[in-house]
């Protein structure tokens, strides 16, 4: 990161041809190199979290407990993958927010469709459900 910044500041002419002029090694020689141990630890956690979500089903938990656990494990797994495996934790915030905010806004769509499907369900129960 520092090397890129120095190149930008001191040799401006390189910027226009950045891909041709600077071999990848110069820009990324130190880029995204982290200790192997870090990846192994994350890998282990992903295993543990997956096992936990499986056990939620295996023990047949139900109701809010089931859903809070499933969502908790899901978010933790997704967070570990994006932050460490996809290196988002080390990217500039300008990229992180550009990529992470739009999917969060999908939650608005989810909320709309929850209302919509509950309404549809109600109408179906009222008018179409076969009497038992």
């Amino acid at each position: 990161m520092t090397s890129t910044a120095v190149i930008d500041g001191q040799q401006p002419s390189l910027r226009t041809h950045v891909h041709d002029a600077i071999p990848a090694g110069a820009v990324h020689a130190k880029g995204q190199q982290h200790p192997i141990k870090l990846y192994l630890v994350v890998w282990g956690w992903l295993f543990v979290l997956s096992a936990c979500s499986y056990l939620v089903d295996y023990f047949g938990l139900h109701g809010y407990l089931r859903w809070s656990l499933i969502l908790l494990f899901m978010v933790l797994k997704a967070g570990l993958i994006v932050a460490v495996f996809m290196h988002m934790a080390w990217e500039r915030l300008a990229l992180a927010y550009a990529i992470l905010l739009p999917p969060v806004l999908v939650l608005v769509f989810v909320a709309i469709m929850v209302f919509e499907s509950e309404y549809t369900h109600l109408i179906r129960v009222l008018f179409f459900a076969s009497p038992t």
Partner: protein
Amino acid sequence: MAETALTNPGESAVRATGWRGIADDWSSDQRAFKNVSWGKAMMWIFLLSDTFIFSCFLLSYMTARMSTTVPWPNPSEVFALTIGGHHIPLILIAIMTFVLISSSGTMAMAVNFGYRRDRTKTAVLMLVTAALGATFVGMQAFEWTKLIMEGVRPWENPWGAAQFGSSFFMITGFHGTHVTIGVIFLIAIARKVWRGDFDVERRGFFTSRKGHYEIVEITGLYWHFVDLVWVFIFAFFYLW
């Protein structure tokens, strides 16, 4: 003139961080994603678009499932297997999840060895990733075969709501396609790494551009995304 605008010579070597940094990066006529190459930025933007597609699939599945008055099949039982006389619920999907997570682990390490220019380890780890991916697709083929034999179709299934069939084939099929494309992508890049294309700066046959080791990280981004999508499918389709 254009060059002056692009290069922004007044910029200091150390960039601001936090909200100030975001404002600086996005303002004025310059590249927003400073230290990120176009290749990596474009892969991220593609993955964002793919996120929307998978979101739409999962959302339409949610809408169908929440609005139907017909009972929904219990995935825990549908995907159960009897192994050695023991009836284990959802075991097939659990194994598939562990296979995919392991492939993400080997891929992350391949990226690391790529930047260290360790050709052998990078190529081998990428091929292991591809093999695990192929295993996943194989298990998915087994899963599809089993369900088709039991009478599941996109328009019906023996256990209740017909939308179960269409959601199942649509969501897992689209994900499986992504895994298959990923396996091909991995093998192609592993071959280039193995041959030393990025050390001798051999030009690609299609673009005639010089590749570099960053492509390993870009391939990794795609692969981890496939794993990421599975996290959500596992939670919403198989555990719900």
